[in-house]
C-alpha cells in the first residue's frame, strides 16, 4: 500500500504519511437521476464544493501505545478513525495500519434484530473474517463476559439496551484486535458495565494492543492514554503528553467558544430499540441575575440554567446537569425527573444557582437527557460559561470560622506544648 517507505518504521502499528481526505459538499445532492440530468445541463454553474476533512497529516503510533484523540466536533476525528479502519480511503497520502483492526464505532453495529444472540455473534465474527471454527472457541468467552447465558438464543430485538450493549462490547473485545479503535462507546451504560469495560480495555493494553481512543471525557483520556493528539480544522495541532495536549485543547475550546454563542452538541448516538428518537433539547441558555442570556459571569453571581426539551410522548426521562472545568474535572452533578411530554410538545426547566462558587476558571455546563429505563443518553447540550476570573484557588466555598476557646500551657513539668483546636464550621 504505502509507497513512501522512507518514513516506514517497523515499530509503528499505524502510520499516516501526508494524508489528506477530501469530501464533496453537494449543495444539492445529486442522488436522483433527475438531478443528475439537470446538472449535466448546468455545467457552467458548479454546485459542488470540496472540503478537506484532513489536510496533510503525518504521524506514527507505536505498537502497544494507547493514544487519545481529542478535538471539537468536525475537527476530523471520525475521518481519521475511518481511515485507520479502512472504511474510507485517503484522497492522497498513505495510511498504514499493521495488524487486525477492530473499530468500536458503535456497539452492536452489525447485529440483526431478528437473529438470536448466538447467530449474531457468529455473523459479527464473520464480518471480521473469523470462520465458524475460530468463533466456536470465542463463543463461550463472549457469552460469559456479556452474562447472557440464558438469553443467548433469544432474538436480540427482545434484549434490553443494556443487554444489547453488553453483547456488542463482549463481541468486540473478543475479536483479538491488534489495533482497536474506540469512539465514545465507553460513555454508555451503567457504572457496573463501565467498570467491566474499563477492566477489559486494560486487559487489552496489557496484551500489547494498540488503542486509538476518542472521548469527550478528559478523565477517560487521562485514565487510559499514554499520549494524545489534538485535531483542529483537519490537522494535528498538538501531539504529546496527555496533560499538555488536554491543556492545549482547553485553551482552544475557550478561544473558539468565546467567538461564538453556539451550543456544542455531543455525539452520543441513539441506540436501536430506544423509543426516544425524537426527544431532544430544543434550546439551552445561561441567564444572569437580570434574566439576560449571557455567557459571562462574575464569581459569586447568581446563575440560572434554562433548558427546553421536546418530548416524544413516551416514558419519563431524567435531566442531568453537570459542571466541568475546561480540563474535564467533574465539579457538580444534579438530576431531575422529567414527566412525559406529548410528542412534539415542549417542557421548560430552569435550575437556579444563587452564587457561583468558582472564581478562577471557566465552567462547561453539560445537560444530558437520560432515559433511566433503558440506561441510554438521548441528547446532550454543552454550554460554556466564561468567568471574569480572579487569581487564586478554583473554588470559593461558603464557610465560617469560630474560636473554640484557648487554654494556657500550665504544666511546665511534663513540657507538653499547648494543644489548639480549630473547629471548621461548614454549612
Amino acid at each position, binding site marked *: 500500500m504505502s509507497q513512501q517507505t522512507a518514513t516506514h518504521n517497523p515499530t509503528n502499528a499505524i502510520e499516516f504519511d501526508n494524508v489528506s481526505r477530501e469530501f464533496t459538499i453537494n449543495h444539492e445532492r445529486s442522488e*436522483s437521476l433527475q438531478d443528475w440530468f439537470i446538472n449535466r445541463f448546468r455545467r457552467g454553474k458548479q454546485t459542488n464544493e470540496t472540503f478537506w476533512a484532513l489536510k496533510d497529516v503525518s504521524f506514527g503510533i507505536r505498537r502497544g501505545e494507547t493514544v487519545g484523540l481529542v478535538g471539537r466536533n468536525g475537527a476530523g476525528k471520525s475521518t481519521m478513525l475511518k481511515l485507520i479502519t479502512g*472504511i474510507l480511503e485517503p484522497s492522497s497520502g498513505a495510511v498504514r495500519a499493521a495488524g487486525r483492526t477492530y473499530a468500536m464505532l458503535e456497539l452492536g453495529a452489525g447485529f440483526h434484530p431478528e437473529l438470536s444472540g448466538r447467530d449474531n455473534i457468529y455473523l459479527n465474527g*464473520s464480518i471480521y473474517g473469523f470462520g465458524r471454527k475460530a468463533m466456536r472457541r470465542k463463543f463461550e468467552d463472549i457469552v460469559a463476559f456479556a452474562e447472557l447465558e440464558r438469553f443467548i438464543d433469544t432474538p436480540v430485538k427482545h434484549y434490553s439496551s443494556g443487554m444489547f450493549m453488553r453483547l456488542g462490547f463482549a463481541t468486540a473485545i473478543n475479536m483479538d484486535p491488534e489495533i482497536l479503535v474506540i469512539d465514545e462507546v465507553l460513555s454508555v451504560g451503567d457504572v457496573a458495565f463501565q467498570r467491566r469495560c474499563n477492566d477489559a480495555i486494560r486487559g487489552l493494553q496489557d496484551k500489547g494492543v494498540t488503542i486509538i481512543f476518542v472521548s469527550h471525557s478528559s478523565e477517560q483520556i487521562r485514565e487510559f492514554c499514554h499520549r494524545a493528539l489534538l485535531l483542529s480544522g483537519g490537522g494535528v495541532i498538538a501531539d504529546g503528553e496527555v496533560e499538555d495536549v488536554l491543556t492545549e485543547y482547553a485553551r482552544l475550546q475557550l478561544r473558539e467558544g468565546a467567538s461564538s454563542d453556539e451550543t456544542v452538541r455531543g455525539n452520543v448516538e441513539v441506540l436501536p430499540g430506544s423509543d426516544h428518537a425524537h426527544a431532544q433539547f430544543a434550546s439551552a441558555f445561561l441567564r444572569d441575575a437580570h434574566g439576560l442570556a449571557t455567557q459571562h459571569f462574575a464569581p459569586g453571581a447568581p446563575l440560572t440554567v434554562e433548558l427546553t426539551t421536546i418530548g416524544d410522548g413516551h416514558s419519563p426521562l431524567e435531566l442531568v446537569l453537570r459542571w466541568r472545568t475546561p480540563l474535564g474535572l467533574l465539579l457538580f452533578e444534579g438530576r431531575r425527573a422529567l414527566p412525559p411530554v406529548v410528542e412534539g410538545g415542549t417542557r421548560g426547566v430552569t435550575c437556579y444557582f444563587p452564587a457561583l462558587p468558582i472564581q478562577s476558571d471557566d465552567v462547561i455546563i453539560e445537560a444530558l437527557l437520560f432515559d433511566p429505563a433503558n440506561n441510554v443518553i438521548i441528547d446532550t447540550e454543552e454550554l460554556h460559561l466564561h468567568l471574569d476570573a480572579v487569581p487564586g484557588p478554583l473554588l470559593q466555598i461558603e464557610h465560617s470560622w469560630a474560636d473554640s476557646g484557648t487554654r494556657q500551657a500550665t504544666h511546665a513539668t511534663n513540657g507538653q506544648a499547648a494543644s489548639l483546636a480549630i473547629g471548621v464550621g461548614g454549612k
Partner: protein
Amino acid sequence: MVARAQELIAYRSLVRNLVTKDLKVRYKNSVLGFLWSLLNPLLMMLVYTLVFTRIFPTNVKNYEIFVFIGLLPWNWCARSISSAATSLLDNSTIIKKVYFPRVLLPVSTVVSEAVNFLLALPILFLLMAVFQMKFTPWIAYLPVLFIIQAMLLIGLGLFLAGLNVIFRDIGVILEVLVLAWFFLTPVFYDIQETYPDAAAWVYRCNPMASIIRQYRTILYNGSSPDILFDLRAGATCFAILVLGYLFFTSLNRRLGEHL
C-alpha cells in the same frame, strides 16, 4: 489482485452467515416458513396454467412443466436483482462502521436466492414425475447452466448495487424494468411459437432468454444442450460479471462517503 482474492476467501464464512441470516429472517415470521419458497412458484404455476389453458389457450404441451421450468430461474433472477440493488443501502450501518469486502453483500443476496432455487428443484423433479416426463442424463448438465446464470446475476447485482448508492431512484425504475424484462423473456410463452423470426435476436440480446431456453432443452425436451450456444451465453455472462465487478470496485472508495 491476488491479495483481493485471498481476502475474499478469508471472508467466505461471511457469505455463509449472510445467506443463513437472509433465509432465517425471511422465514422467521411466517407460519409455513421455508415452505413458502416452494409454494410460491407452485402457486404461480397454477395461475399461469389457468390463464394459458383457459383464457388464452396455447399449444404448448405439459404447459405446467414448461412454465415451472421458466419460473424457477426467473424468480432467482428477479429476486436477486431487486435485493442485490438495495443490499448496500440496507446494510449502510455496517458499511459505515466496519471494514469488510463490500462485494460480498450483493454476492450473498444472489447466493441466498440461489439456495431457494436449488431447494425448489426437487419439486420440479416431482412434478416431472407426476406428468410422466422422461428424465434424461442431460440433467447432469444443470450445474453448467447454474454457473452461467450465477455469473450473470452477480454481475448485474454488483452493477445495480453500486448504481443505487449514487442514484437512489434506481429502486423505483428497477421495478418497471424487471417487469418489462419478464415479459420480454419467454418465461410463460414459447418464443419459437409466438415470434419465431425474433427468436434469434431475443436469445442474442437477452441472456436470461438463452438460459431459460437451455434449462428447457435439458429438462423439458430432455435433449442434448447446444454447447456452442452455451459457450456464447457463458462468455456474455462472464463479461457482465467482470464489468459489474470493475464498476463496483471503482465505486468502492466512495461508498463510505455516499451512504
